[in-house]
């Protein structure tokens, strides 16, 4: 009878093949790491853009940036943070930990998983190539309101890069979501019923469903925009009867669920961290899980609250206001359950816990300002002002980014096998916490004092000087905090303490294997008997949490270059599409080459499936 946790330890396996092995890997853990590294680099780039914004706005009538440059930089800051930082950081953690947490050997479709990653990287590259190509980055905001995005108003090719990059990212997210959903539904270990799944897995599943249903809307939107810009259609141009509001509906039908796509995984991480460091189970597992489902459903019924200022009329205003306020209920439930999880616990204040507690404190502020924005009359005053900027940064930085930092401190030891430094970690937290509040709290006041968002400068006589200066100082504190994280990470990789299997005395399955886990994740099949399999084995007695089946032969597909080749084809295709409308002589050959590459990749892929029927 070998339910001893130690029995799960695999011998250290040295990865073979050097850096080239990363190009052909189909291992969800390696792909997860690539996701995390890529997204973190984009996060730093987006942060640099934020610093440039804050330098420009630090003083009135500043000339650090021209208006043209400022508009490109704020557009890329938003686009980068949403699509290239927060979403892929979440995806990276999901990739790495969902299979581990449900006791699976890999994702459902390992090759498709690799494709999702490569398309993320290529999508990001397509967007950033725009800077190199004559400094003409997208300049119409991440929300890209037509008709400003149309060729007559946005004359550079920036928006074309934006559309094409986003198409690749869309395919990436769609494939990734299908993969996560199938993995969760189908590959759970025996006994890992839905109501025993870790909450991070729950939230990953809901997020993936949201993506599945929200993405098509923006895919259609940007496709129509691309047709307008390159093939002279008029979907959003009034002359032929096109309508700019069509864009807004298509965009926000995606854009609002997108908010939950970014924050639900954060909820999941917090729901993992809090119980472990409170040494108690999550309070009200079902409420936390199902409130996530409720948020997911309601998230599709509130998109027009971004459009109150367009004059929807009293009926629509009332409906969307009510639906939006309703969302505060499941969100509030989550917060109360987290607080109750800590209550009467034995709180261990390690760095992940700092970020988790910081998350609750900050997210509540974002939630409160969110309810105020759901009231159309007040929204008419503060929408598109810095109040909104403050609000969504409290949700997405104070919320999602705090959770991601917490998640990083919590899970990196599992990924790298080494602990991060606690003192640096706490310093990191306080720097970010102070910098964050100094940056974004004054922006509430700026909004109330009438400062619109997305302005490249403001005049001395507006009375906005002090708060802008404070905000800019805060931004540098955040940057410093991020730098500490980088230093901590490097130090940890070089001489961090070995983490061991279960450094936090945790409850879920990812801690029941080595750090880092072997290629096949677990040496035995885990049969789950409770919601906290590892914990219950440790504290309730052998077999109470899980039992092992050593007669287990997980099947892992061999490394494959097909996903990379196929994705490269799509990458090249993006450039072919870029030239198709303007210079077909260039565009058509590129498209043919791209299709050849993609076709070659696909045929290899199909061939591999024939031998090894896993996608």
């Amino acid at each position, binding site marked *: 009878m070998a339910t001893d946790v130690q029995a799960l330890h695999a011998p250290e396996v040295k990865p073979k093949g050097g850096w080239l092995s990363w190009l052909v890997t189909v291992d969800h853990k390696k792909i997860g790491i690539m996701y995390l590294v890529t997204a973190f680099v984009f996060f730093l780039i987006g942060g640099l853009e934020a610093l440039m914004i804050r330098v420009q706005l630090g003083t009135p009538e500043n000339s650090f940036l021209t*208006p*043209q440059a400022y*508009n490109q930089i704020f557009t890329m800051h938003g686009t980068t943070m949403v699509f290239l930082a927060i979403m892929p950081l979440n995806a990276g953690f999901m990739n790495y930990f969902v299979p581990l947490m449900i006791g699976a050997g890999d994702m459902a479709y390992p090759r498709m998983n690799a494709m999702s990653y490569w398309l993320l990287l290529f999508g990001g590259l397509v967007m950033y190539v725009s800077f190199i190509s004559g400094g003409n980055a997208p300049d119409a905001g991440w929300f890209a*309101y037509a*008709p*400003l995005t149309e060729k007559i*108003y946005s004359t550079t090719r920036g928006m074309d890069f934006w559309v094409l990059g986003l198409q690749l990212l869309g395919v990436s997210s769609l494939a990734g979501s299908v993969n996560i959903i199938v993995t969760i539904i189908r590959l759970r270990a025996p006994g890992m019923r839905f109501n025993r799944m870790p909450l991070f897995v729950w939230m990953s599943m809901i997020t993936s469903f949201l993506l599945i249903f929200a993405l098509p809307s923006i895919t259609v939107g940007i496709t129509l925009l691309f047709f307008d810009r390159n093939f002279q259609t008029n979907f959003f141009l009034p002359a032929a009867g096109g309508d*700019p*509001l069509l864009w807004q509906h298509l965009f926000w039908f995606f854009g609002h669920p997108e908010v939950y796509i970014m924050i639900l995984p954060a909820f999941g991480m917090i729901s993992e961290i809090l119980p472990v460091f*409170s*040494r*108690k*189970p999550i*309070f*009200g*597992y079902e*409420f936390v899980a199902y409130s996530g489902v409720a948020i997911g459903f309601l998230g599709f019924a509130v998109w027009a609250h971004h459009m109150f*200022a*367009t*004059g929807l*009329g009293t009926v629509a*205003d009332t409906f969307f*206001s*009510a639906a939006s*306020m*309703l969302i*505060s209920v499941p969100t*509030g439930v989550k917060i*109360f359950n987290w*607080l109750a999880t*800590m*209550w009467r*616990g*034995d*709180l261990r*204040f390690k760095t992940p816990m700092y970020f988790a507690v910081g998350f609750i*404190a900050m997210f509540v*502020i974002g939630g*409160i300002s969110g*309810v*105020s924005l759901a*009231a*159309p*009359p*007040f929204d*008419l*005053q503060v*929408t*598109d*002002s810095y109040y909104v900027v403050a609000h969504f940064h409290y949700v997405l930085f104070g919320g999602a980014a705090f959770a991601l930092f917490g998640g990083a401190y919590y899970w990196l030891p599992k990924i790298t096998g080494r602990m991060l430094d606690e003192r640096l970690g706490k310093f990191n937290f306080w720097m970010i916490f102070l910098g964050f509040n100094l940056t974004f709290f004054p922006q509430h006041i700026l909004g109330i*004092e*009438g400062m*619109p*968002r*997305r302005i*490249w400068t403001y005049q001395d*006589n*507006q*009375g906005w000087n*002090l708060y802008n200066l404070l905000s800019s100082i805060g931004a540098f504190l955040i940057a410093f905090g991020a730098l500490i994280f980088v230093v901590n990470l490097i130090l940890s990789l070089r001489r961090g303490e070995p983490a061991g299997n279960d450094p936090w005395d945790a409850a879920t399955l990812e801690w029941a294997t080595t750090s880092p886990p072997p290629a096949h994740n677990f040496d035995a099949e885990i049969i789950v008997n409770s919601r906290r399999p590892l914990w219950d084995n440790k504290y309730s007695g052998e077999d109470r949490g899980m039992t092992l089946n050593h007669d287990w032969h997980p099947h892992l597909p061999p490394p494959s270059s097909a996903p990379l080749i196929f994705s490269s084809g799509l990458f090249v295709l993006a450039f072919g599409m870029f030239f198709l409308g303007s210079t077909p002589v260039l565009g058509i050959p590129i498209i043919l080459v791209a299709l050849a590459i993609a076709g070659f990749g696909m045929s290899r892929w199909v061939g591999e499936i024939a031998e090894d029927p896993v996608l």
Partner: protein
Amino acid sequence: MPYRRPTKALGRIGLLLIAATMLVACGQATPQTMLDPQSDSTRTIFNLAVLLFWLGVGVFVIVQTWLIVSVFKYRHKYNDQLPAQIHGNTKVEIAWTIVPAIIAIFIFVLTFQAIQKIEVKPSVASADEVHIQVIGHQWWWEFRYPDITTADGKVLVTANEMWIPAGKVIDLTVTSADVIHDFWIPALSGKRDALPVHETKIWFKADDVPDGEPKVYWGQCAEYCGTEHAYMKMRVVAASPNDFQTWVTEQSGPAVNADLPADFTAAGCIGCHVIRGTDAANGGQIGPDLTHFGSRMTIAAGTLDNNRDNLHRWLDSPDAVKPGNIMTQVIKDDTLSPEQLNTLTDYLISLDPGIDAKEQAAK
């Protein structure tokens, strides 16, 4: 004076205190603040905001207190005994599902009332209502008064400065000539998008002002509209009905200086600008109507105060003053000779029929 509940008064005092601290902290006036509502609709919004603010403070205090108490009370204290493994408590959880729901419904009911109040325009006699068409352009505002006819039989048009009679219902029809803009005067009115094709409506009633003391309100485009979104500002002047009448009379007249310099045509100004009562009466309509330019408070949609030096600067190099604005496509840094510059500056400054709000604006 409607009856105000004491809680509301308390809220106002609270917010005003915060506003006062903010003023002290800044040492600066904030002319575009929404904390100083001066119309029926912004006051309704303000009262709702006060309520939301205090409810928010309540939630904030409860949650943060709970959090902080937990952090200090239950932090690890050299006691390795496992805490009680509580999995939940359905009754408690149902309670904290229902309580926020009740609060949400409460907020919603008040919101609903406020929506009715600010969105449904009261029906008043046509004499007590002024219709104005607001048209957003990249990057300036056009105001048309469809009910006011000028001396030469056209509709009265101004730019970047909208005069209104205080105490009357101002019925705005908002639209755009190009991309989406957003009309916003924080003291008088919440936002309304200026959409191409669509016409959106918004109304407000500015508080009364005495004769001879028109009040100036600041506003700004709030929807990102391209390069110079930052310099798409406007001023609204709420004048007493008498002052407003004077303004209407003066503004509907032709330009006070009909002696249009030839340079206005030679330099290409006429391609985009109208000056009624002169040879430029049928000029292009791409840029602002300049008939009474001298009476306006600002140049280039709030970019500069309107005086001779600034105008000279602007005409000398529009791109240095407001980089990327559309006039730079015609007027480059060396387009106008020094003589032309002086002639045009002098002429435009002279177009001032009398009543204006420059003095009030300076206050």
